Structures are given as C-alpha cells and as structure tokens.
C-alpha cells in the first residue's frame, strides 16, 4: 500500500500572532513552527497502517524551505521519503492543485491529511483534492482500518458518528483519536537524514483570489462581575454595553 500524507507547517498553538507589511504578512520572527496537529494524527495512523500492512509512506508539504524541519520530523516519525513543493501555500485551491498533481504522479492508494490546517483552518483541501483526482474524499475521519482494497472508517457527523466503507483510492481528512500520537524515537531521528527529500517546483494554477489584509480579533475585554441578586444592573448592562437586548 502506498500512502501519501500531506502535512502543513504551521505556527505553534501558543504562538503570538502579529502581522507586518500593512497587515498582509504574518510576522514570523520568534514564531515556533510545528506539523499541523491534525496532520500529525494522519501521519501517526499512516505509520500504524504501514506497520500492519507494509507498504510505504511519502510525506508531502506544499511550502517554503523553512518547513523542511517539519518534514524531517515526519521522516523521523516514520515516513520513507518526502516531497516539498517549493512555493508559498497561498490558498486552499492552489495547495490542493499541487497535492493533486503530485498524487497523480505517485498513484497512491491512500491520501491522508488533517481535517484542517490550524493556521487558515479552511478545511477544504481534502475535498478539493478528491474532486481534482476524481476519487472519493471524507472528513473528519476519526477511525480508519484497511481490509484489502477496502477502507473501513468512522466519520464524525452532527451529533454522532457515521461508519463507512469505501474502496481505495481515497482522500481522508483525519483527526484524533484516529491514532496514537507519535513521538519521533532516537532511531527515527538518526535515520531521517538518510531519507530522500525531493524538492519540486509548483505547477501553475490560476489565482482564485488575492489577499488584501489580515486583522486580529478584538482583544478579550475585562469581565464585569454582577452580584447574583442584582438583576437590574445585569439588564442595564446587557442593554447599554453588550447591546444585545
């Protein structure tokens, strides 16, 4: 089985977000980057599936060279080789097109990625890739087993879970608890540097949208405490300050 795992290179969940260049760019100074947490689970499941069924794992990142640290971490966790599409991942459609292009060349049985990245959180890349490749895609998948040519998986739906079967190839957007989170072990770390990391140039994609600027959410205001029996003040504040009444 050939598995392609797509990973994002995203700011750590605790990073302080600030913008530069007239609010058109993230200020990367001092920001720690990580493998997208959902992607991490997708990769972890791929490693488990490889342990059970054999095969190979290719990890793919659409991004600039500074993301190679995360790619090497993925290799340390258990991917066999890696592809980096050398470009700025400008939007979901662009990224999906790059992934679809690489996926066609590699003809994979399974394409796994996180349910969404944690920077832009658009959560549509798996769907787009499925469409572009003309194969089914599902998300968010939280349980996945492979039986021959069939994937058996569970998907979270509104208020419950859905159990599905589909034949390979497939694109799946994953989330915990699909696998046990993996820490790169010493052997993995030391062999990562011997595994191939191929850098390829992006294919041209028509620009779907252009970015104007980013803004940060308004800072959280201070909390006002009102005594439990003072309903009048509460109503007054809801009217005058919160303006919800």
């Amino acid at each position, binding site marked *: 089985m050939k598995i392609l795992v797509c990973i994002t290179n995203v700011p750590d969940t*605790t990073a*302080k977000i600030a913008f530069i260049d007239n609010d058109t760019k993230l200020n990367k100074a*001092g920001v720690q980057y990580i493998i997208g947490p959902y992607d991490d689970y997708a990769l972890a499941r791929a490693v488990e599936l490889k342990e059970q069924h054999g095969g190979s794992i290719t990890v793919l990142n659409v991004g600039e060279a500074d993301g190679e*640290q995360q790619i*090497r*971490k993925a290799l*340390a966790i258990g991917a066999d080789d890696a592809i980096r599409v050398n470009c700025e991942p400008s939007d979901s459609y662009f990224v999906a097109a790059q992934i679809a292009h690489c996926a066609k060349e590699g003809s994979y049985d399974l394409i796994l990625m996180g349910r969404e990245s944690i920077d832009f959180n658009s959560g549509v890349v798996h769907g787009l890739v499925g469409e572009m490749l003309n194969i089914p895609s599902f998300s968010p998948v939280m349980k996945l087993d492979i039986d021959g040519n069939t994937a058996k998986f569970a998907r979270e739906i509104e208020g419950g879970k859905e159990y599905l079967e589909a034949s390979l190839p497939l694109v799946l957007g994953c989330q915990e608890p699909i696998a046990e*989170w993996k*820490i*790169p*072990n*010493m*052997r993995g*770390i*030391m062999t*990562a*540097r011997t595994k191939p990391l191929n850098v390829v140039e992006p294919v041209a994609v028509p620009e779907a949208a252009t970015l104007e600027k980013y803004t940060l959410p308004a800072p959280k205001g201070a909390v006002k405490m009102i005594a439990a029996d003072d309903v009048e003040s509460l109503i007054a504040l809801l009217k005058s300050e919160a303006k919800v009444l």
Partner: protein
Amino acid sequence: MIATQNRASIKGGEFLIKETEASQVFIPEEFTEEQQMIAQSCRDFLMAEVWPRLDEIDQAKSPALMSSLMDKAGALGLLGTAVPEEYGGFGMNFNTSMLVAEATGAGNSFSVALSAHTGIGTLPILYYGNDDLKSRYLSKLASGEWKAAYCLTEPDSGSDANSAKTKAALTEDGKHYVINGQKMWITNGGFADLFIVFAKIENDKNLTAFIVEKTFGGITMNEPEKKMGIKGSDTRQVFFNDCQVPVENMLSERGNGFKIAVNVLNIGRIKLAAATLGGAKQVAEQAVKYANERKQFGTAIANFGAIKHKLAEMAIKIYASESASYRAGQNIDDLIEDHKEQGMTDAAAKLKALEQFAIECAMMKVHASEVLDYVADEGVQVYGGMGFSADAPMDRAYRDARINRLFEGTNEINRLLTVDMLLKRAMKGELDIMGPALAVGKEIMSIPDFNMDGSDELFAAEKIVIKNLKKAALMIAGAGVQKFMMKLSEEQEILMNVADIAIEVYVAESVLLRVEKLIGVRGEAACALQKDMALCYLHEAVDKANSAGRTAITSFAEGDELRVMLMGLKRFTKIEPMNTKNARRRIADAMIEENKFVF
C-alpha cells in the same frame, strides 16, 4: 557538526590561568536541528507519559509504574543515547547526551530513575567492561529490557565511599565471588535487574566492582525509603547475603572499584548539572505563567518589580549555568575526539577526557544544583500561598530539587574536590597555577593599573574583570598554600571560599563568551537581553567573589599582609557600576510578554 574552531583548546582547570576566545566555546544555540529534535522528543515524552502521572508516581504504590515508564523511555531510545551503536545504543556524543539529560530533567522522580539507570547504572560497564561483559549487558540496558542500579553507599560509608564494608570472597573452586554486606540509598533498587556492586576482597585497601544480576540470588531489600522529595524514585536498602557472582563479572581489576566509582560519579555530576537545568527551566516557566495569571492590588503580580527581579534572576542563573555546562561538555567531546584520533578506544578516550575535566564536572554539579534550588525556592515565593499548596507544582519542585545537592557527591565534597584537584595538578606540574599566583602576589605589592576600560571592543572591560577575578582566586589559593602548606586541607572553610570564587569565575566567563559568540552571529541588537543576562551575572559573581575572598583572607592573614591582600581583593573585584535593576526588568519583561521561559 559543530562550529568550534580549535579542538581541545584548553585543559581541565586551565580556565583559571588562561583566557579563552569566544570562538573556542560551544554555545547551546549551536545545537543542530537533529539534536533539537532529540531534545524535543524527550520533552514530548515527559508531557505525554510523565507529567500526567506525577501524583501517581510519587504515591509509589508499586515499583511497576516507574519500571513501565522506563520501558517506554527505552522504546523511544532514551536509555541508549550514550551507548555505542555496536551495543544497541545510538552512540551520540557527550554534549548530546547532556542535552538529553537536560530535556528529561524536568521529570521529577522519573528523571532520577532515568539518570541513575543511564548514568551510574550503565556507564561502569560501558567504560570498564571487557567485550564479553559489554556485549552481555549493554544492549539490554540500552533498550530498557533490563534496569540498572548502582550500589556504592552503605549505612556507615557515604561521602567516604572507599570505607565500604561489603565483602567479596572467592569461593574455593575459584569460580565465584560471594558478596555479603548492606547497601543503602540505592536508586531503582526495587525494580533493578542488574546491580553494580562495590565490595572489598579480603582486606584490600580499595574497592572492587562487580556486575550482579538480580537472579544470582541472595539479594533482599527493605521497603522503599520514605523521603522528603523525589518520592516516586524507588530508593532501597539492599542486602547481599552470600550472593554468588561469577568471577567473570568482576569489572576491570581487583582494587579498581574506587577509581570506577569516582570516575563514573564524575560523569554523573556534569550530567546532573544538565538535568537540574531542565528542572529549573520548567520551574521558571511555571513561575512566569503564574505571575501573569495571579492578580493582586488590581494587577498581575508580574507587574511588580519584586516579582520581576525573581523571574529575571531565575533566567540569569539558568542561562549562565547552561553556558558553562555545555562549554565543558564540548571541551570533553573535543578531547574525546583528539584521544580517539591518537588511537585510543572509545571507552578509554571518554574516560580520559572526562577525567581531564573532572574539575569542571564538580564545579558544574555544585553550581547547577544550587541554581535549581534557588529557582525552586523563588518559584514557591512567586506562587505565594499557592507555593505552599500540595495541589500546585511548586511544592513538588521545591522538595525534589533538594536531593541534587546531596547525591553524586555532596556539594561540600564537590567543592573540596574542585580545589583539591586544582592544587594536585599544580603540584604535579600539569597546571601552572603557582607561577601566576606568585605573579599576582607581586602585583598586589605594586602600584595598581587603573586602566579598567581596555579597548572599545565588545566586553573588553568585562574581560579585564574576569581576568582580575582569576587573580583574586590565585591570590587567595597561593597565600593559603604558602601559609598552611600540607595542612591546607584542614582549612576547609578557606577551600570552600576558593571553590566558590573558582565556580563564579568559570560561570561568569562562560556566559560572557557565549553572548560574545552569539552577538558575532546574530548581531548586538538581537542579543540585547542575553547581554543583560551576562552582565548581571558578572556583577553578581564579582560580589560573591569579593565576599568569599574577604572571608577567606580574614581567616588567615593579619597585620600588613591582611591589609595588602584586602587591597588586592578590592582591586581584583572592581567593576564599573551598571543599572542591573533595569537590565533585570528587561529580562523579566521578555518572559512576561511571551508568557514562558524564552532563553
């Protein structure tokens, strides 16, 4: 891998009489991506497996929990970092194994179990075992299939380790040694499969070391000790009653055990320094977060200068101690490489290099363990009443920190060793301390050189301060030797003072060199806070050296000599004043802003 220019640029203890260029020191900022990934895996392991179970670990209901954590650490490869690949390990260099010790150092009782296993439990075999013993035991220890303990201390033999009474007697058929005796304070005792046991054969003056498997029989133990801290670390009294050990399991030669014990502890010491740094960083981070959360008088306590001072002091001390620890670690690595190039085996090269830097190992053990205690103590203070609550992290941090000043040689023993080794090397002519000490003796009789500023090169003035601090140490040590001759060892108070000055000099110089090198790479603007830290540390070191120096001088000099030496001390502990309050505020503010330990 590392951009350090000259290999083996300095001998052990030579820092006291020689200047070092910034380019010659390793700085932690030079750790490679791979080394950082290794450290991150260690931290991730603590986060995933250890921190969620700290209470359960400390309740220590059964040794099985710690043993299973060790299994998991073994599966990740954390137990084999220092073991060569041919014996199932990963053959990482010394500084990487220090980094692993640091990154696993914030695991409280678990860290102790891990370091006892990988350090004093495994290293005697690695360094002194023959091929047969190495291939029989090392891969089992590196994988964690077997756990190890180290049995040196006895009820009547602690600091005076060579006075141990445990006996090993050869059987009539010459095939076994029969071990009888009682060991105490044995870390990992409750679940160890293998014990490194030190015992005396007949009436030997020196100990002999043995590898004893649990299954050899005749081993019993008491319930775990009830302790102030590291409650989850399994510490036992272990009894050997006619324990039969095959003669092949003697490590090295008869009578070589004390040397093994000393050298292995020596390595353990500097790794312990690294481990305490990991613990201290964790406490500092928790303190910053709490200071940001906790509000009093209508504002976060992080906004109070008194709290900022504490947070900054934590960072300064940690950063300085870290600078010196990895500087020494790299010196050790460089010398190992040199020895290997000259044809020594891996084990012999490591032993020789570590022996060469034994002074630095002892100094860093003292310094880093005291930094951790300082940080934990102030951590409690930042938490206020919650610092005293068993439901908040400072309670455990404070209690667990304390052991580090006791084991692997108490800090008194390590201070004494520091000076003892320096003087012995001077006597043997390995270190030219007496020449410079005499020169300093002359210098204090002459008119002082008031040119303090030096050139306008970076840290030119500070380097003169360091040079002078070294002179202060030499002046006092030299005068002490002249005065007391062979009886100096009875003047422990003076030796402690000299050790304190030497430690401060080494650490202050290390942090300055680190920042100088870093500025060379990143530019001064990007290193403003690091510069603040180096300068604050230097100022404190000067004060400490002055205080220790005065105590020492007044304890033996009188009349004119006293006056001249005090004048000399004043001259050698002179430093341009700076506003350290503002520097500390800047340091603290950076952490407060990021809500974490940022250095």
